[in-house]
């Protein structure tokens, strides 16, 4: 007797069209969020906030209601949605250029207020959609279209370690950094995303997951080489792990 062991999550639309480049980890991240929404059984009660960047097309795949926020303002919009509809599950799906660059003010203040929302940040060390410019998370020495000789500390400073910054904020209940470079890492990432949603459902504060993702197109690598880079030089600077976990403590 055949048994179904895996199927497309219900929280992904049936007429979905993945608009990301081949091998981009965004597709896996979207899928994980959808699987978590399915497992928690909150799909019908969820409002997502899309951001600007490669994640802008969230409404094309998620089978939930989505609000499109101006660039960087996803967590500000999420604050408004959550406060006017406190019984809804609210999450934002943002890139690092959105959450950590133009939106770092909104991010820090929404989390300082301890808004009961979940923020998912895709960190691929570059601005993917606009053509691979240097962002706040670009690694030192990384060649991008705006740092053609590699990012130099004396010109553009150091990469911003988002999880390390946000774990110090009292309003956050769960902060973790995960990778998607292997099936094991993907399963671990799913557990962390689930906890970030539980932080919201239990009213403990903001749940935040930073996902180290690949951008094979702008890194000019194959998907396999890009995953090797995530495992190697990216994980050395951005150390994966759970930085703050009030969810397990509250159990």
């Amino acid at each position: 007797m055949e048994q179904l062991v895996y199927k497309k999550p219900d929280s992904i639309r049936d007429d979905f069209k993945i608009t990301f480049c081949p091998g981009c980890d965004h597709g896996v991240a979207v899928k994980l969020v959808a699987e978590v929404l399915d497992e928690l059984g909150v799909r019908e009660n969820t409002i997502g906030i899309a951001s600007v960047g490669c994640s802008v097309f969230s409404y094309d795949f998620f089978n939930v209601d989505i609000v499109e926020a101006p660039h960087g303002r996803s967590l500000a919009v999420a604050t408004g949605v959550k406060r006017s509809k406190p019984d809804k599950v609210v999450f934002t799906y943002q890139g690092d250029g959105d959450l950590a660059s133009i939106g770092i003010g909104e991010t820090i203040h929404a989390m300082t207020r301890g808004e009961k929302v979940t923020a998912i940040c895709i960190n691929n060390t570059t601005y993917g959609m606009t053509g691979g410019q240097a962002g706040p998370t670009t690694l030192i020495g990384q060649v991008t279209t705006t740092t053609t000789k590699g990012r130099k500390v004396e010109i553009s400073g150091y990469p911003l370690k988002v999880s390390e910054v946000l774990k110090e904020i009292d309003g956050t209940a769960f902060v973790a950094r995960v990778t998607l470079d292997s099936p094991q890492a993907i399963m671990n990432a799913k557990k962390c995303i689930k906890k970030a949603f539980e932080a919201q459902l239990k009213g403990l504060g903001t749940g935040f997951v930073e996902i180290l993702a690949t951008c094979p197109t702008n890194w000019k690598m194959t998907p396999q080489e890009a995953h090797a880079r995530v495992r190697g030089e990216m994980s050395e600077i951005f150390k994966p792990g759970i930085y703050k976990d009030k969810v397990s403590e509250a159990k």
Partner: protein
Amino acid sequence: MGRIVLNRDKCKACYLCVDACPNKVLEVDKSVNALGYYPIKVNPDKTCIGCAMCARVCPDIAIEKVYR
């Protein structure tokens, strides 16, 4: 004995599933799909164990269902 349901017109040829498959059941097809990529196909000579590793790593949800 397992089985996957593959939507070959969703595949964008990143071949992450080919690397993830422990039994090397998946291989590259010789004909292009609707998107113009060379998608993956199942090698009928190899045995699928239905571990769903391929479906988990697929960024394009081309592997829609896995049975075991």
